[in-house]
């Protein structure tokens, strides 16, 4: 992590219900200044509720939200220094691009010349300077999104919320926009909060990610730490590909019912009894003779150009084990492979009922 910066948003003990459904359950979070933050989770995890509370479209049942120390919840939506890029963009169909972008500035009662200048400037930033007079319906999906983005950042908010910013774009435009968002965030120096269910989207852009689970925050960390040091089996499973072994905690790792001792690391955590062992596919390797290993059968070989994935089976286990290797592999379907791994890269995690529900 870079030098410790100040918190912009402080969320404390936020709870919210929709009817009888608990959408947020005692959520506390800090979002730092100039940070690219992501709220990541499957649909129904409460991330959208949190976004709507931040934007002021929803008033929470309990808890507090402050922005730079000032209470947000008592502030109506139109008075908050927060702008939102809607998932559907929500552009005004009867206004052209210039009018859409100017709308927020006009509400601030800025002089006309200044509005014009800032609209032109922001449209240049998003590369739409020649579309000022176009209607939203005349633009492509990617262009519409740029207008939505321009309309949100032209107000120079303290916080920019982005609701599933890349979900509606096709693959090529997506990666373009991904870079663009990152560049913009550095350029304009606004705190970005992205809400997404797409871990790639979150992992590739965010400085820190909060993984949300059933209305609670599971873990808040950098993308690398989330991947390498998940604090729960749920998070480990949700982020990236993973292999899980279930067993009972022993000094060297876990003791599996049929495979015996599987070495792993608890990373200082106090875990006992039933536990999961998480190993990422790229941390598995073929054992040389004499090493402690588990025997597996190659069920399938998938070659992706830059890397290959071996799908391996163990007797008495239905879930396949994935092992990835750089480049091509010589392994053939039906061959036996002895697997081993660096115990430091295998993580012992407390038993998590939610993981088996996945």
């Amino acid at each position, binding site marked *: 992590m870079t030098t410790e910066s100040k918190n912009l948003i402080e969320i404390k003990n936020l709870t919210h219900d929709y009817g009888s459904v608990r959408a947020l359950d005692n959520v506390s979070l800090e979002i730092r200044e100039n940070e690219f933050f992501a709220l990541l989770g499957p649909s129904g995890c409460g991330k959208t509720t949190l976004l709507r509370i931040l934007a002021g479209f929803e008033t929470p049942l309990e808890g507090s939200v402050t922005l730079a120390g000032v209470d947000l919840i008592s502030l109506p939506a*139109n008075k908050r220094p927060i702008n939102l890029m809607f998932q559907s963009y929500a552009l005004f169909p009867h*206004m052209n691009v210039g009018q859409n972008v100017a709308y927020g500035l006009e509400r601030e009662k800025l002089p006309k010349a200044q509005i014009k200048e800032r609209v032109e400037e922001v449209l240049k930033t998003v590369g739409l300077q020649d579309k000022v007079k176009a209607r939203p319906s*005349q633009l492509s999906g990617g262009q519409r999104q740029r207008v939505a983005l321009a309309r949100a950042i032209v107000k120079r908010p303290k916080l920019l919320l982005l609701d599933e910013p890349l979900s509606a774009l096709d693959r090529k435009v997506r990666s373009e926009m991904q870079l663009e968002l990152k560049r913009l965030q550095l350029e304009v120096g606004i705190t970005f909060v992205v809400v997404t269910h797409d871990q790639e989207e979150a992992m590739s852009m965010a400085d820190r990610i909060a993984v949300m689970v059933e209305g609670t925050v599971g873990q808040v960390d950098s993308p690398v730490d989330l991947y390498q040091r998940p604090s729960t089996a749920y998070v480990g499973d949700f982020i990236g590909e993973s292999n899980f072994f279930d067993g009972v905690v022993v000094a060297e790792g876990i003791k599996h019912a049929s495979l015996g001792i599987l070495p792993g690391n608890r990373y200082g955590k106090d875990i006992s009894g039933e536990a999961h062992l998480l190993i990422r596919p790229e941390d598995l390797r073929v054992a040389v003779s004499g090493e402690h290993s588990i025997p597996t059968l190659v069920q399938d070989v998938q070659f992706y150009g830059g890397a290959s994935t071996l799908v391996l089976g163990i007797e008495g286990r239905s879930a396949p084990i994935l092992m990835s290797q750089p480049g091509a592999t010589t392994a053939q379907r039906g061959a036996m492979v002895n697997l081993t791994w660096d115990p430091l890269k295998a993580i012992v995690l407390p038993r998590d009922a939610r993981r088996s529900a996945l």
Partner: protein
Amino acid sequence: MTSPIRTRVSRDSEKRRDLLERMVLQGPGFLFITIFMATPITLVAIYSIFQRGRFGGIVYKATTENFTRALDPVYLGVLTDSLKIAGITTVLAIAIGYPTAYAIAKLPTKWRSIALVLVVMPFWTNFLIRTYSWIMLLNREGLLNHALMKFNIIHTPLDLLYTQSAVVVGLLYGYLPLMILPLYASIERLDPQLGEAAANLGATKARAFFSLTLPLTASGLIAGSIFVFIPSLGNFIVPELLGGGKTVMVGNLIRDQFLKARDWPFGSVLALSVIALVFIFFMLQNAVEKRFSSDASE
């Protein structure tokens, strides 16, 4: 490519098929318009330039007298009165209809259809009967006067019936659903996120209404206004029953010319003038709508 003849043949048969398809698809509409619109209007136009027969009917001697007579202040007055009454009715229908339609569109889905049925329910009863019932409500011995006197708000009954206001009330009552329905349709189509976007950009509720909701529902507003204004302009039942003959609208005048005065040519001229007015309003509507819809979908 090698045989231009064959392609020409197939193109010919294609053309024929095209023609057949068009006849099937457009024929019924064309027939309807010819029989129920073009023919009567043509007849009326022809009647208007001839002289009246002694006991009705037409004497085929051309004259312009019918037209000059229509410019008489008496008749022009009836026309402007009719425009005024229809205009007031339309404005009131907007004032009542817009909030109503808005409220219905914001109801939970299952209540919406119930509310819409309630809006349309009066149409299940004959217009004439419904207009008669207003006499019961408004006359000197009527329910309204009774109620007002009972609560000591007034001491002598008010002359509510047989006034221009009674005519406006009757027309408003009769045509309000025609304002609410198109308005509801356009309000219901509005993306609620646009309102949130406006708030997010700093707009107050009022500002969001005037800058988004109103322009984006303009087509429904215009359609509703046309639906209320035009039948109000030509209505003769309501002025007859609730206006008590004191308020004469152009519809009464036309009917009287045909049925009482037996002056078909003059009646035709008056009918033509109403048709011309309606036409002008449609053109206006078209122009306004084009402006808004080009804003919306260009």
